[in-house]
């Protein structure tokens, strides 16, 4: 029987486009220090570490060699993982798995990315994911979401202006989040006049390149109750990595998010997601992705989410409280991004999100990680047991 587990502390860096003042390892230490302080714990209390970044976007191999000594955790048990954009998601899921075994008292979950060190090369593509199948195309998240959005607009009636409204809403949220990287004061006109990367994707629609790290500490129930008086329970979690096969063959707009959410909802008895989950931090690598993801998590019918934006129903303290932190188009330390979502969801449940806190009781929050061609990691949090 698995242990019930809770997150007892969270920490993240103030995310920036460039951090020449720190090494990757020092950046990680910054997030870990904040996390330990938040939990009121010390490194000696941690007995297992799960860590990772998307190595291609950093330019380091075996980053544990550089980071473990910097954190002062030499000799502790641990795992290093990587999985493109979902890296932070699989790191979190593995830390949940580890804590749920009951083998450890406190598991440190750490993910990072220092994209300023690879000159944003990842966004400019290359077939490297699988040279035989994708090498003839300059594939990247930009082309992935150009393709998805073309099909979405074709099916839904959504226009470029609607997508610009989504981006403005994301920016309005980010403006209230001191940790967010891009806080721009955007208008619909400004978004629509921005540089076109691959129609209908403009530069402002894509997630930026970010230097940042995020961490949390996960404990089994007994330890969690000793450490903090406001544990955030991890009610359920799921990794779903059948992306290309499960979704794109059927529907070029789809990800595995719907499938993964349905599995988790069923296990947790959730029948009305919008009513039963009060805060959402869902990994949207491009602003139009937020439209499809709102549909896939079960908030509205397929190809109608753009109407919610047209009616100004999405945002902090609105009918659909989606990505109150500003989300991924404001901040994207790619390997760490799912853990940033998790940290933000924890803050919402605790009521500690500050200016971007959703008002009212947050009983449940859902955070996700996204990567590749539609893979997802679901992390469902709960305030009470």
């Amino acid at each position, binding site marked *: 029987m698995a242990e019930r587990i809770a997150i007892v502390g969270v920490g993240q860096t103030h995310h920036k486009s460039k951090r*020449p*003042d*720190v090494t990757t390892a020092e950046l990680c230490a910054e997030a870990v220090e904040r996390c330990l302080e938040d939990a009121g714990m010390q490194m000696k209390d941690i007995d297992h570490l799960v860590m990772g970044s998307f190595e291609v976007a950093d*330019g380091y191999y075996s980053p544990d060699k550089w980071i473990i000594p910097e954190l002062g955790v030499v000799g502790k048990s641990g795992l290093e993982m990587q999985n493109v954009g979902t890296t932070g998601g699989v790191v979190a899921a593995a830390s949940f798995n580890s804590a749920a075994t009951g083998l450890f008292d406190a598991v440190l979950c750490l993910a990072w990315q220092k994209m*300023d*060190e690879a000159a944003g*090369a990842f966004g*400019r*593509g*290359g*077939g*490297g994911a699988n*040279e*035989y*199948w*994708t*090498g*003839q*195309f*300059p594939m*990247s998240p*930009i*082309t992935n979401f*150009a*393709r*998805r959005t*073309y*099909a979405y607009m*074709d099916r839904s009636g959504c226009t470029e202006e609607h997508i610009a409204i989504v981006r403005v809403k994301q920016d309005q949220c980010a403006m209230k989040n001191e940790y967010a990287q891009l806080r721009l004061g955007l208008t619909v006109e400004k978004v629509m006049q921005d*540089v*076109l*990367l*691959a*129609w209908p*994707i403009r530069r402002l629609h894509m997630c930026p390149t970010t230097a940042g790290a995020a961490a949390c500490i996960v404990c089994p129930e007994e330890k969690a109750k000793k450490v903090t008086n406001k544990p955030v329970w991890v009610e359920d979690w799921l990794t779903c990595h*059948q992306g290309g*096969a*499960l979704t*794109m*063959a059927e529907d*070029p707009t789809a990800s595995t998010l719907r499938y993964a959410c349905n599995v988790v909802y069923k296990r947790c008895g959730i029948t009305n997601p919008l009513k039963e989950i009060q805060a959402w931090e869902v990994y949207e690598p491009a602003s139009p992705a937020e439209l499809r993801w709102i549909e896939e998590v079960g908030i509205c019918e397929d190809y109608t989410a753009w109407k919610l934006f047209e009616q100004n129903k999405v945002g902090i303290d609105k009918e659909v409280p989606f990505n109150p932190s500003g989300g991924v188009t404001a901040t994207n330390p790619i390997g760490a991004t799912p853990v940033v979502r998790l940290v933000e969801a924890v803050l919402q449940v605790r009521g500690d999100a500050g200016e971007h806190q959703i008002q009212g009781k947050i009983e449940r929050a859902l955070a996700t990680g996204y990567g590749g061609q539609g893979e997802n990691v679901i992390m469902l949090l709960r305030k009470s047991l």
Partner: protein
Amino acid sequence: MSTEEKQEPEFIQFRYPRQVTYHHALGYQSKFANGLKQGRILATKCPVDGRCTIPPRIVCPFHHVRQTEWVDQGQRGRLISAFKINFPMFNSRTGELQNWENPIIAVELEGGARMDGWCAEMDPEKLKTGMLMEAVWRPEEERQGRADDILYWKPVEE
């Protein structure tokens, strides 16, 4: 003046000037590669629901049953999606940044499998979902068993 001047943080630049040639085994997908050399697009077919998939696979990703039947997908298909890149991106074959004039499209072939390709029509405004497209191949002697043996897809008048 102090002997300890203020240190500004800095980036140190590195390049990776090495060339590595990888030799990736194609395994079961070798039949697909050989088909391309003959100007044929072959896909595996699921014995449970008859779905044809590219990339071909030994087992169906949905039903987890062995796929032994291969089906020629024909030379034509319907356009599913399209986009055109407006900024320099890396050419994976050369390692250089370059501009890309042709749209990239996804096509559902006559046999039901789907694949990506370059489009002959440069103006994305003229591309509509459901349009009939036809494969245009490299000359046989230039084919290497790779997906870019198909040079591009061109719209077919109906």
